[in-house]
Every structure is written in C-alpha cells, then in structure tokens.
C-alpha cells in the first residue's frame, strides 16, 4: 500500500529500470555506456592477460624511452618498463580510486542532504553552514594541502577526495528533500504514525534516488580527474601506479623533451576516455530528470 504511494509520487514518474533504458536511447548516453563498458573490460581483464611487473626494468640504454615496437606495443618509460602493461594496470587503480572516493562522497552528501533537508532546526542550519563552507573552498588546493599533510597512499587519496567532494551532493539532495517534505503523502504517512526515520528512509529517500544517481555519475568523473591531478602533482601512491602517476613520472623525467609521445599520450587519453564516458552518461541522466531540457 505504502509502496504504491511512493511509486505514484515518484519524481517525474520515472522508475529506475526505465532510466537506464532512456539513457540507452539517447545517442550521447549510449556512446557513454559503450565507452564505459569497454574500459571496464580493459580494467578487469587487461592486467590479467598482460600483467605489469614494476620491477621489469630495462637492461640497456636502448630500452629507455624506446618507441613502440613488437615487444613493447606502446614503447617503454624512463626506466625501460612497458607502457602498455603499465597503462592497463593504471586503469584499474584510477577506477578503484574514483569509485571508492565517490562512494564516500555520495554517502556523506546524501545523509547530510536528507537530514538537513528534512529537519529545520538549528542543527540543520549548522549542517548547511558547514556544507557552504566546504563548498566555498577551492577543491584542488584543498586536496593538495590534505594529501601533503596526511601522506601518499591509495587509501589517503580516496579519503581526501571523498571527504572534500560531498557538499554539492548535499546541496542538491537537500533542496529536493525540502520540496518533497511538504507534499501531502508525507503528511498522510505521518498521520498514520510513521516516525521520522521511517519517513526519511522509506518515503523520501526513494524519491531522491534518481537525483542521487545522476549526481553520482558526475562525482565519479570529478573524482577520477581529482585523483589524476593529485597523482600528477606527485601526491599519488608511488607503488600503486595510476594514470596520473604515470604522467607525473613522464613529466618529471622529461618525456616531452625526448619526444616520447607514446608515454605521454596513452594515460591522458585513458583519463579523457573514462571521464568523458561518465560525463556523457551524467549529462543524459540530467536531461531525463530535467524534463524541461528533454524537449530539445
């Protein structure tokens, strides 16, 4: 009975299963899904088929910055390691960091958004002030400072990005919750005796879900870019080499001056490809959830 109410009042009358189908019918959305699928396959199976051994360094001077060949499909790096294999294992690290950081970010953002949107006391106002404070800080300088204070490891990178990127999610969720809070069916459920926790979890949360989906996809894109930038600036995990870390070593070893395009291009194209796939999907979801833009 209650479940029916929820579905009937769902924002824009879109069910989760339909949403994915609608993304697929959009040309850009479909392109995004295909690109993402391809990258997932590469990240999962690539390192299994072509394992990367960080200790497998070059033995002669010719092995350093050697251009693509039969043995090294994408040439070698500044200490003679295979760029192609490094690229495949980098895909995994970049995705793991991006997805894990997003999980933290979306969880915090959703909870703060739900709570501060549902309640309207001083505590809720305080939460919003904290959100605004973090929203106002420039993201990159903030994560640079945090990463250089707390050290370089994959776990810290995930925490730093996750703990700094939640405010926009909190704001979006909150404004949606405020508009749902006042709707009649919430009033009805409350008069039936449902408590705050029950109302938030079973009756408000399902209605902000689509919005959280769309936001999640964009946060993943942002997190992957943040990780790449942090790693490029030398604040990544030196052992777990991501695409950003590869570009850091390429930059500091002067790969540009040595015309080692095979070392500079692939990791960047990888980042661009992943971020673009999430951006395309996010943009399409946005279009579906904002019917005013859907018409065009």
């Amino acid at each position: 009975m209650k479940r029916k109410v929820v579905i009937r009042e769902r924002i824009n009358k879109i069910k989760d299963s339909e949403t994915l189908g609608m993304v697929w019918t959009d040309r850009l959305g479909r392109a995004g899904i295909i690109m993402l699928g391809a990258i997932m396959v590469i990240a999962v199976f690539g390192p299994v088929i072509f394992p990367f051994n960080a200790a497998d360094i070059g033995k002669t001077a010719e092995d350093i910055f050697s251009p693509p060949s039969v043995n090294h499909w994408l040439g070698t790096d500044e200490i003679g390691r295979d760029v192609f294999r490094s690229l495949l294992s980098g895909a995994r690290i970049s995705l793991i960091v991006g997805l894990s950081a997003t999980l933290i970010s979306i969880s915090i953002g959703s909870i703060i958004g739900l709570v501060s949107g549902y309640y309207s006391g001083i505590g809720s106002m305080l939460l919003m002030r904290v959100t605004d404070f973090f929203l106002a800080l420039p993201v990159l300088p903030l994560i640079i400072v945090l990463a250089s204070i707390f050290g370089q490891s994959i776990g810290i990178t995930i925490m730093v990005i996750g703990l700094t990127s939640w405010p926009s999610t909190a704001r979006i969720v909150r404004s949606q919750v405020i508009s749902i809070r006042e709707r009649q069916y919430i009033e009805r459920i409350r008069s039936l005796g449902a408590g705050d926790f029950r109302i938030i979890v079973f009756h408000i949360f399902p209605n902000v879900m689509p919005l959280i989906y769309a936001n999640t996809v964009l946060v993943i894109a942002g997190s992957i870019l943040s990780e790449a930038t942090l790693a490029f600036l030398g604040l990544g995990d030196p052992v777990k080499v991501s695409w950003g870390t590869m570009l850091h070593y390429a930059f500091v070893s002067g790969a540009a001056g040595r015309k080692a395009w095979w070392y500079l291009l692939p990791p960047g194209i990888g980042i661009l490809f992943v971020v673009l796939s999430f951006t395309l999907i996010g943009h399409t979801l946005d279009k579906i959830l904002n019917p005013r833009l859907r018409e065009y």
Partner: protein
Amino acid sequence: MDKAGFIAKKFAQLLFTLYAIATFNFLLFRILPGDPLRLIARAGRLSPDAVARLQELFGLDRSRWEQYLIYLKNIATGEYGISITFRRPVMDIIAERMSNTILLLLVATIIVIVIGVGLGIFASMRRGTGTDNTLIVASMVGWSLPTFWTGLLFIIVFGVYLHALPIAGVLTPGAVYTNYWQLIGDYANHLILPTVSLVIVDMAQFFLITRNTLVDVLTEDYITTAKGKGLSPLLTMRRHALPNAMLPIITTLALYVSLVIGGAIQVETVFSYPGMGKLMYDAVLRRDYPILEATFFLMASVTVLANFISDVVYRLIDPRVKNI
C-alpha cells in the same frame, strides 16, 4: 530586506568564513606529524639553548590558545611566516609571484567568458541542429580533459615538434629588449599556451549554462510574442532572452573561480610559470609548509570573495531575491 541590509549580512558572512578558513588552516597545519622545530631547523641535533631560542622566536613556548590568537593577528596583517626553503618571509615571495598569476587568470577568464557565452548564444539559436550537437559534445570533451595533460600536449606539439611557441617561464632567458613592446610581446608569447590550456578546459561550464538557459527561455510565450511583433532573432535574443541568462552566468562565475584556481596550479606547474600555483607545487615537493599554508589561505580567500561578489551582484540584478 533592503539591498544595504543584504550586502551587510553577506559581508558579515564573508568575514566569518574567512575567520573559519584561518582557524581551519591553523588546526590543519598543527596536526602535522613531527616536531615543528625540527622542520624549521632542518637539523637533527640542536643544543638545549638553541631549542629554547627557536621556541621563543617562533612562539612555540606559548600555550596553544596564545599561538592561535597570534596566528589570527598575523593572518589579518599579512604576516605568513618564513619559508623553509627560501629562508625569506612568505609574503615577499608571494608578492613577487602574485602579479603573474593574476595576469594569467585575468586573460584566461575574459576569453573564457567571451567565447563561452558567445558560443552558448550561437548554439541556442541553432538548437537541435548538427552545429548545436557538435558544440555540446566538444564542450564535454573539453570538460573531461585533465588540464595538466592538455598543457603537456601543447608542449610536445608546439614546443618540442614545431618549435613555434615558448613552453616555459614568462620571458625568454637572456633576451635583450630594445623597447617595451618587445618585452610585452615576449611576455604575451609565453602566456599563449598556458592561457589556451585553461580556456579549453574551463570554457565548457559557461557554454553549457548559457546554452541551456537560453534554450529554456526561448520557448517562453513572451519570446513568441517578441517574434510576433516582428523583432529580428538577434534583437529578440539581446532584449528578451539574454537578460534571463545573466543570473545563471553570475552563479557559474563563482564556481568557475574555484575551478580556474585549480587550473592555474596545473598549467603553472606544467609550463614552469612563476606564479602562485607553481609556488604551491614547489612547496608540496619540498614540504615547505609555511608557503603551502599561505598559498592555500589566499586561494581560499579569493574563492570566498568571488562567492560574496557573485551573491551581491545577483541580488543587485535580480529584484526577485528578497531574503536569502
């Protein structure tokens, strides 16, 4: 609430946020592992006498609360301590670098707004066409590009392969200038690649927000009326549609400042451009915490200030906003 009251309230919020940033900064850099004295002295063994003198010099013999109050006073008066690597006051070093970054960001921002908004208008008038779709996809590709990698690409293409443009610094080393114009020309030449890198990546927001707002507005009844009156599409755009896009553009500007500061750190690093961003990068590499602390505080302050200005301008332009 009247305008003056609104501005006063926003200004009070601005001051409080700056205070919060300073406090945040104080706490952040006090939880650093290790003894601050070792960091300052960069020496393993110190005589008890030297320790005492250094403690007194840096105020480390005082209580945490006293340190905090002194810290707030110092921040307010622009006293950011002494750089560990340069062995000079942080403020002097920042003052030397500041103008380079301001120039870079100013030039990039003007181009970003002009081209971004311009293309947004252009695309909205051709909505649904191939041109519109191409521009949307292009802007999303731009948005997805890592700024630092875009810079690296330019270096390898225009610097290493084509030898067409300078790829590092602000002036050609050892160059002799016979007049001011040559100096300005050399400076401008060095600005091209960093600026273009920033513009390509950070333009998307302005393009998309302008386009989407205008596409939305152009379906309104009053636009149909304006067209019905016989106004040309350009005049309709200028008088009836564009004013509606002003507010979202102003909101975007505040977000953009945060983004472009991050961009500046990246391009300045890649192009060895002696500004605040490169200073921050070097401070990270050498763990020069006083510089890191000061550059972060200044960057955060600028972003908060941009938010304040955007709020105020929004209120002044939009008569509907009464009380936020």
